[in-house]
């Protein structure tokens, strides 16, 4: 699915990440942790082609990102659902239209209006906010809407950057269950989080690996969690 090989990245100063090798196999479930500023978001961006590695190779669905054109990147993003750390919406469209946006931009309008949308909205507990505008949502509601938008295309891979940063424990458990459910359907999942409790709770349901960024490298965290 997504493969990083000896990847390094620098925003211009020193290297933020170096010699990172990582393989997200189909159906795998990974957590990504590390101190704030370690480069979790950066690593995620490398995984959906928003950044190009300064060294090494990133392969998305078998193709080197450097060889992908802009339209190819767009197509890759339809197969990778992303929940961004700084969630952004089209603020003039309703929450429902925003959640269905990936369908609209890929020409699948009929599905955008379909019943799956309603089901998904109730999954993330936003049934009462379907017609609200994004600026009217709370932080947690925005994250739930973002998660719904990330999975509506039924992507092969779901990348979630701090998806539970602003929600209470119950809601975070619910979102997690949604992600576990998707994983059981064969989707690859990668979640960046600080929340060790969340990781522990997940491990009870699914075999999850924990990756840790420290000193610019990525390590597989031990079973001590």
């Amino acid at each position: 699915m997504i493969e990083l090989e000896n990847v390094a990245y620098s925003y211009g100063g020193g290297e933020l990440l170096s010699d990172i090798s990582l393989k997200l196999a189909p159906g795998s479930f990974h957590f990504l942790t590390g101190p704030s500023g370690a480069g979790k978001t950066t690593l995620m961006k490398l995984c959906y082609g928003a950044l190009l590695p300064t060294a090494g190779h990133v392969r998305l669905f078998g193709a080197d990102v450097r060889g992908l054109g802009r339209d190819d990147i767009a197509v890759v993003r339809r197969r990778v659902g992303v929940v961004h750390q700084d969630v952004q919406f089209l603020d003039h469209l309703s929450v429902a239209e925003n959640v269905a946006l990936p369908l609209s931009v890929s020409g699948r309008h009929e599905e955008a209006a379909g019943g799956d949308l309603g089901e998904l909205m109730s999954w993330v507990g936003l049934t009462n906010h379907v017609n609200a505008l994004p600026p009217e949502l709370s932080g947690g509601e925005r994250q739930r809407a973002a998660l719904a938008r990330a999975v509506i295309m039924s992507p092969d891979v779901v990348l979630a950057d701090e998806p539970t940063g602003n929600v209470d424990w119950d809601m975070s458990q619910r979102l997690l269950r949604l992600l576990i459910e998707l994983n059981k359907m064969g989707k690859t999942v990668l979640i960046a989080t600080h929340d060790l409790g969340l990781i522990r709770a997940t491990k009870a349901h699914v075999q999850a690996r924990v990756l840790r960024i420290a000193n610019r490298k990525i390590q597989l965290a031990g079973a001590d969690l």
Partner: protein
Amino acid sequence: MRLSLGSIRAVFTGDKEADKVVPPSGFTAQLTLFAAAAMAFLAVFALALSLAAGRLAQSWGEELARSATIRIVAPLDQRQVQTDGALRILETTRGVASARALTDAEQQALLAPWFGPDLALSDLPVPRLIEVTETAEGIDAAGLRLRLAAEVPGAVLDDHARWRAPLVKAASRLRLLGWVAIVLITAAVAAMITLAAQAALAANGQVIRVLRLVGATDDYIATAFVRRFTLRALGGAGVGMVLGMLTVLLLPSAGDAGNFLTGLGFQGWHWVLPLLIPVLAGAVAFAATGAAARRTLQELT
């Protein structure tokens, strides 16, 4: 956004969903419409000016080049003799298609604007005019002058070149000026649309980023903007063109004198030309917005 049949078709068929992704922009939209309309209005006049100047240059250049005038300035009693003498010379001159002395009645009509209709021409030593029509090859003015000087002392040849040349030049300049104005107007439309599109793209930075992140292609995003600005330019220029043409239609006609001055306006199939102005404005907007969108999108991953 590549220039292709598909991208042009997308402007007209449109995609209601794709339209919605860019928030509506009431006031700037109206400014764009207004500017396009004003430019098209001006373009109609520049076009009318060019075409009228072109007609003027052509008629002065061609029709007058084929004619010359001989004035017989002689005392009354010799006037007829000298006129006949000049006509005889003209009969044997190369390049003369026909020559004919104007009648008293015709000369009277020519002078009437200055002296009134009651002038008794036969009693006055008014020069007799001979109208010479030249063949395509033209006459040798210098040679003819020499022959006339020898046999008809009162004959003065005027081949019109003296006053015609600067007029033709002026008319040609006027026509060039009209075309330059059209080019400038087109460039101004391109600049105005580029500014408006750039402003819209900048104001919608978040929209474009979000669309890009959820998997929209550059073409999809660009079309949403290109469509708006192309249709606005097309619509605004259409209104401006119609108003411009109505104004040209309502310009007071120059009447008889108009035959000579060829009034500002369109003649015959030239009426079709202003219809191209909105098309040109639309094409310019299509290209300008496409280029602006491409520039903005290139900065995004």
